[in-house]
């Protein structure tokens, strides 16, 4: 599964669907909309039967939008173990979890809610996100949504004040 972040301050490259397999699954997180509410974390705990408070059924990563102020908490299908992976190189990256060891209570690693995928449903975190921040689908779906977002944003023109 590929994880993509998008947002005005992310500075991520344009997501290029041609770089991915058509069948690949992609989770896109719109950091502009994320309010760090933690619903994704709770959704994961709920879905996998953990009681609330189990450490890190899903570990959201902290993404700072600038050097001040609170960070947002988009979900990350990662267990933050020590085994190196390509995660930290780029905002567009594979989640190739080389480890299937049981490091946390009961759960190995994120499988994008395989039980839900089998029934044609999105993973729990994406389904339950409060601000409709997480989008999930094939690369072509993601590209479509990203394009829509950019079109909407073209209405956002910064107004500069008159000199005083």
């Amino acid at each position, binding site marked *: *599964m590929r994880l993509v972040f998008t947002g005005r301050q992310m500075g991520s490259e344009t997501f290029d669907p041609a770089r991915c397999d058509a069948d690949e699954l992609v989770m896109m997180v719109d950091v502009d909309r994320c309010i760090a509410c933690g619903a994704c974390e709770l959704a994961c705990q*709920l879905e996998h039967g953990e009681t609330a*408070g189990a450490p890190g059924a899903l570990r959201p990563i902290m993404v700072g939008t600038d050097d001040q*102020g609170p960070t947002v908490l988009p979900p990350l299908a990662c267990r933050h173990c020590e085994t190196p992976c390509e995660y930290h190189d780029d905002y567009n990256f594979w989640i190739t979890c080389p480890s299937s060891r049981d490091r946390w209570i009961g759960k190995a690693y994120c499988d994008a809610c395989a039980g839900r995928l089998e029934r044609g449903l*999105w993973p729990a975190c994406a389904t339950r996100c409060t601000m409709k921040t997480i989008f999930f689908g094939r690369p072509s779906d993601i590209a479509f949504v990203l394009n829509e977002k950019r079109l909407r*944003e073209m209405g956002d023109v910064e107004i500069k004040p008159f000199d005083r």
Partner: protein
Amino acid sequence: MNAVGSNNRSTLAKRQQSVRPFDSVRRTTCRNCPAGCGVKVFIKDGGIVDIFGDEDHPTNKGSFCPKGLLSLYHLKNPNRLAEPRIRESLDAPLRPVGWDEALEFTADGLRRMADGRRRESLFVMGAETAPTDFLLGGERFGEALGTPNRPSRFHPAPFHATGKVQEMFGVPASQLLMNAPRDWCNSRCIVVYGCDLAASDPITFGPVIDARDRGTALVVIDSKRTMTAIKATVFLQVRPGSRATALKGIIHLLFGDERVDREFLAESTEGFERLEKDLADFTPEHVAGVCRLCPDDLIRAADLIGRNKPVQLIAGDWNTRRHLSDQDLCLGAALVCLRGSVGIPGGGLNLLNVSPFADGGGPPPHRSLEELLLDPEKPVGVLICHGNPFAGLAGGRPTRAAFRELPFVVHCGSYPDATSRNAHVSFPLSDWPEYSGLVAHGNGRAIQWCNKVVEAPGRCRSPLEFWTGLGHACGAGDFFPWLTDDGAVDARAAADFFLGRNPLTGAASVAALDPEKNPPGGLLWPCVDAGDLEFEEDRFIRGDVRGRNILFRRRRTYPGSDRRFPTASGKVRYPTSSGGGETGDMGAAPPALPLMLTTAVPVDSIPALGQFVSDRTRRSKPPPVRVHPRLAKLLDLRGGDPVVVENHRGRITGALVPDSGLDARVIWCPDGIDPHQPDYAGDGPMLLFAAAADPFAWVSIHGPDQDAEEARRRLAAFLETAGPGS
């Protein structure tokens, strides 16, 4: 390795659907906060196995917030109260009894008070976010027993019929959400005034973020760089207590740049010329000095507001509305009027947490519970309360001591808490999916129906069952005429009774509200005739909830009135005096207390339940005290270190969390903390406040092993050199 990448399903849908085995899906309405979201509950063998948002519900459209999700754990939380408990004095422990005995015990307590004192010594109290049925039943009970001291008298005074907004518009602020959220996407500029919607009402923040995605300018005025603030186009980080001054500065600039709708002012208002004169001195430089802003930021904000129309202003969420004064509300209304944004799509003064039942129509509100407790006349004989008022008491030890001396306290709630610790009777109430009833307070000006979908644990009963039982035990059964033949409370009959007698909801009925039989979302009120039960559809709006989306439209009359604005003159009148000095004008810092302690609720805090339901950690932990990193460094403290925050009213202990989103002179600690909750082991910050309505408290801070005097000296020296925006 799981072969996620090779999944062969061709379509993947975002459906609010469970994959666990279930027998049925029920649609109901969440009551945890004023957003009022639609919920799909998946039931198996009478128990909830899963919970999702309702895709068809216009408020949340399938989304669900942490508070809603936490409901699942909350409902099964073993700490929940399951049976009534009583005791003769606070020295003895509460002992469990049956409902009849507890109701009789309470009725006896009431009779004892009535013997020696006047009827007015009965005080019924509930926050505006208490379940609608609790407030309705409480008002009714107060009426039955002849006391004016009912829940509406504890709600913030500016929102009452005696507040200045009523004078301006002919409608009290507790009912003034002019434009429903469906319409908010039409705004070109949204001003969020003193609210952290992302933390307190995240689903209500949805339409704001949607609008922003489409290019709407967002101006946020607050004293902490909250999650709402970082979404802003312009964020005015003002000194705590100086928000109204920032508004005055913006309005001054609007007048100065002639960005006011003179036509609207001439046609529909009076008294605004006085406002222009009154604000002549509020230049950007002056305002920047008072608010600790950069003048340029103020000018940018005024520019956005002045260049974009329509403009709306959002204020008054359940957590921050107690800090709003008449002046705040009148200035916010003035801003929207000046920009000609009243009665048009995308405009409006949109005050949150409105309710058609908020105003009991009785005498003006008390100033506060604290004032009543400290009154030497000791007016409070019996206190029946909901929502853990003890934990939120301001005024330090004296008010808490006075509470403990109250002759008779009745606690209603779901968990043991600081209030039940000081109560003589405790009644366990059912929670939202466990009883059917009205949901009236909200951020969408909608009245909804919540269906019971599961049985409550133990011997919990619904708020209406509590009040009806107590009313009958006190011999006032006539006031509660909604019992079935076998003595059960008919919730639908009761709801129809309350809807029918309120002129704002005259056309509504439970039959028209039930989300399993009607389009979800309820009805927008005021709904006074059959036309208000339809979806509005014209060139301005296509409503997704039945009813009127935009109030005060031109060439329409306000429901129940023969004019557009139901005032004496038919116009919006700017009040001659809008409430005097600014709330929060608390003068200069006292010598030994240089810092401002502010507070708000975190995102998983549910109004009546506090932090109980979070349970995200298993151990008690000290509450976080957020402090600017420069301040922490000054005191040689690091993240995680214990800290003491104190003033002459008391002290609280917490763990330091560095937060550069604060001004260096401001610290923050979350509200809704109770030392009897499993998550936090300590008193909440309200202990240090003089009054609950104050935007901040003057305090000092130091590590527990540090010399307090030395810490104060360092702080004083540092703050002398700190300039605006540091």
